[in-house]
């Protein structure tokens, strides 16, 4: 982000930058929301309940899996547990952002926690790596709110379109592409590269574990390998945080 050498960007400026930085990601998020809305209707959910998932659970991949399970007549308890397991990675995001949000009053923590998704987290952690905290929470709010609004609107559009959305468009491919765009700028050194590669390969190896648990295990192992490579190339006294 561009900013004056001395002094901190204003709250308004941070908010607008957050919104602006999140906009390109919507190219990946909106198709995903469209498909979710259409899928929810196709398994027999009412339009209100379909939108309710996006409004209240607000977690893309977990919503997909939940709705698929509902389509397969899984019990409510199984669906809820699956949502929680699929979203376990958010605990990692939460831990990652916690130091940067520690100074904020409780309502801010409640709001930014609510808006903590894959995409918003990736943008926020990039911002926090940039140094001074200042009004960075406004940036995070901007990214989160933009994503939230786009998710609600695209879900609603998907509900309205329903079966009119042709599967041959392969719109679901937009999501991995979004993650690719998010991952590329983080691969700045060997430890990060090691973390990313090992987590990806392990996720493949563990793909058959239920409830996407392989994803969580692979991520933790990837972080471990990143730390190990870091300790090999840097003396242990020079560890930096964040």
């Amino acid at each position, binding site marked *: 982000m561009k900013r004056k050498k001395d002094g901190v960007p204003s709250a308004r400026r941070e908010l607008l930058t957050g919104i602006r930085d999140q906009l*390109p990601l919507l*190219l*990946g998020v909106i198709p995903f929301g469209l498909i979710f809305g259409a899928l929810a209707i196709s398994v027999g959910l*009412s339009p209100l*309940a379909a939108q309710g*998932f996006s409004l*209240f*659970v607000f977690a893309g991949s*977990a*919503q997909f899996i*939940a709705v698929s399970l*509902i389509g397969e*007549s899984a019990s*409510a308890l199984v*669906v809820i547990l699956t*949502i*929680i397991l699929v*979203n376990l990675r*958010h*605990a*990692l995001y*939460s*831990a*990652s*952002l*916690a*130091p940067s*949000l*520690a100074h904020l009053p*409780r309502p801010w923590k*409640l709001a930014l*926690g609510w808006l903590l998704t*894959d995409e918003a987290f990736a943008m926020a952690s990039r911002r926090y790596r940039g140094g001074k905290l200042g009004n960075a929470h406004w940036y995070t709010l901007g990214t989160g709110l933009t994503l939230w609004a786009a998710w609600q609107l695209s879900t609603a559009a998907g509900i309205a379109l329903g079966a009119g959305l042709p599967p041959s468009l*392969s719109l679901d*491919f937009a*999501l*991995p*592409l*979004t*993650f*690719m*765009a998010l*991952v*590329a700028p*983080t*691969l700045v050194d060997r430890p*990060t590269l090691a*973390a*990313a590669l090992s*987590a*990806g*390969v392990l996720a*493949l190896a563990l793909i058959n574990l239920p409830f996407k648990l392989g*994803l969580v295990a692979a991520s933790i192992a*990837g*972080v*471990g390998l*990143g*730390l190990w490579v870091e300790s090999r190339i840097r003396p242990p006294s020079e560890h930096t945080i*964040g």
Partner: protein
Amino acid sequence: MAETTVWLIILGGLLGTYLTRLSFILLIPADRVPVVLHRGLKYIPPAVLSAILLPELVIRDGALDLTLSNYRLVAGIIAALVAWRLKNTWLTIATGMVTLWLLMAR
């Protein structure tokens, strides 16, 4: 499934997801975060995102497919080149989607 049951699931999903997101931000004090986790924070985004991303590209119909007939892999590699060289979010997504559509239209 009954409408009430669906809303019960939404409520459970809301509580479970929100509490997970709040875990370290609000519920668990900062000094209780293990040191190793603290040091590993910066590796969390690349690790998690790659772990989600890679299977989406190379697993087709439940099996590993590293051939050129896996259009998602081909489109993904081209998009990865764009992401790596240009670091442009919009172009990365657009290139990947258009490549996939062109391959499927052949």
